[in-house]
């Protein structure tokens, strides 16, 4: 099964050079079609920004102000109280410690899940591109097809196996599950990267007597920095944003932030505190959003390949 072309060419960073004369003529003319296009562009931008704006202003208002002023109004008396409550006081099930416990749980899950999956993905990609052991492509085909399958198909047997091994509901269990479901995309990413490395480089290292691990550690890994960065962005985002795996496998003591957030908002009874809810949502989305805004170009690079994960 060949699916490498699922990773399309990266979006060019420089615009395509259009024919110059036509451009100069076009620049002077504001035709109705062109105005319509910009109206659409600005309207779409407003639609995409609206939830972010509402999230931020809601989190800065008091509940009274939310009820009186309407959802779009700017806060009259901005307050950080909802943020403090969301971080360290809001109730999630039995305890009322805020989402900070979930934050640290998510960190504890994300760090090993990212490092281990990237390492294994790199070894897989390296072996698949250069050593090509018999039968490896079939395995890779199964792995890639698995990336498209809903986790519901695999989840119950995995639960049984984890329970038998006595690790169900523990940190190793959730890291292992993230490893299983992160491996296809990470392997694909590294395989495609190493496929573009000149094969002569590998041949030369072989002639110099390099073995499997030596060539990997001394030749391939040092030149893999760009793909490692892309892989790390994708894996951190994927693991941080995961809900279903954390819900099933992490257990009460390692409950990730995403599961906690949903509990805060959907299982509390009584009056809904929209301001606290929105502050908690921003806090939870902050890590991947910050990663996106800081790493822009790299994020876009990974997105094409990471989209496989869905």
């Amino acid at each position, binding site marked *: 099964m*060949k699916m490498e072309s699922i990773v399309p060419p990266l979006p060019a960073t420089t615009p395509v050079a259009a024919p110059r004369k036509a451009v100069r003529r076009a620049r002077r003319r504001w035709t109705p079609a062109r105005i319509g296009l910009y109206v659409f562009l600005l309207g779409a931008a407003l639609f995409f920004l609206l939830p972010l704006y509402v999230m931020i202003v809601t989190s800065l208002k008091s509940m009274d102000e939310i009820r009186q002023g309407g959802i779009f109004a700017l806060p009259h008396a901005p307050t950080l109280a909802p943020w403090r409550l969301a971080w360290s006081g809001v109730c999630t099930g039995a305890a009322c410690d805020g989402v900070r416990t979930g934050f640290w749980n998510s960190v504890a899950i994300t760090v090993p899940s990212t490092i281990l999956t990237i390492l*294994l993905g790199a070894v897989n990609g390296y072996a698949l591109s250069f050593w090509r052991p018999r039968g490896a492509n079939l395995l890779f085909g199964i792995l890639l097809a698995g990336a498209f399958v*809903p986790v519901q198909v695999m989840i119950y047997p995995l639960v049984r196996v984890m329970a038998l091994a006595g690790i169900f509901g523990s940190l190793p269990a959730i890291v292992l599950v993230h490893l299983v479901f992160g491996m296809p995309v990470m392997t694909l990413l590294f395989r495609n990267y190493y496929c573009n490395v000149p094969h002569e480089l590998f041949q030369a290292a072989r002639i110099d007597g390099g073995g*499997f691990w030596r060539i990997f550690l001394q030749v391939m890994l040092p030149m893999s920095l760009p793909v490692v960065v892309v892989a790390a962005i994708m894996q951190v985002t994927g693991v941080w944003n995961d809900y279903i795996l954390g819900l099933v496998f992490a257990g009460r003591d390692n409950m990730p932030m995403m599961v906690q957030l949903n509990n805060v908002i959907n299982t509390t009874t009584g009056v809904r505190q929209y301001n606290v809810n929105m502050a908690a*949502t921003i806090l939870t989305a902050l890590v991947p959003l910050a990663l996106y805004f800081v790493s822009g170009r790299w994020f876009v690079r990974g997105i094409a390949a990471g989209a496989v994960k869905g």
Partner: protein
Amino acid sequence: MATLRLTRVTPYTALLPMALVAALGYLGAGLWTFYISLTGSRTFPSGHFIGLAQYHRLFDNERWMLSLHNLAVYGVLFVLACLVIGFLLAVVIDQNAMWKMRGEGVFRTIFLYPYAMSFVATGLVWQWLLTPGDGIDGGLRALGFHDLRFDWIVSQDFAIHTVVIATVWQMSGLVMALMLAGLRGVDPEIWKAARLDGIPAWRVYAQIILPMLWPTIATVLLLLATAVAKLYDAVVAMTQGGPGIASEVPAKFIMDHLFLRSNVGLASAGAIVLLVPVLALLAPYAYARSRKEAA
């Protein structure tokens, strides 16, 4: 001699984790689920073989049939909206670049940032935005649209449509990025030729470029279709399947029967049914790729 043998064996040992994951984590677990779906398992798997009875039960189950119906409605609307919005955004950004206007980076960032947010966060934000009374409709009433009512999220017939709105917001930026990459691969000579012939831009896009983008569209379709089959987080966060069971989807039906309603056999049958359309989409795609590879 010894080292020679070692180098032959090492690649195999290095790929052992991948082999285990592929053979046990995906293939083995999938087959096990299929086996469970043929048994009368309740809370725990049992060896009591009952053939296809679970599948009969499944398709007699009102909640499952409603889930399938919802998924069909959701799937059609979500895929169409993502494709149309994603393509239009890519075209507008592409035109913007051809006119040598600025702002491309800003617009791309704005359209893509929702993709960095999880489906849970997306669902929760849109739940708040669409809350009748306090949400958008209240805000618009305060701005003077007094007769406006927008209560789809608590409506039996339209709750699933609100999930479409939220997830399209989250994913259409991704479609835009992939389509834009496709548009940038179009030969500039085509534009020159079209201009010489005086063909309007919209016709160039509709009749020349869109057919050329077929491989990109196939990839996007596959991604969107698998996202449809996986739909779970957004529903849980936004409507919890409600009001009542009005916005239930198959993935949630399976999870509920696995972990809350202790009906593992029925849930496994549902999982296998959910697998069928995914494989049906994947097979022609993989076949086309391998044909292309062989040629």
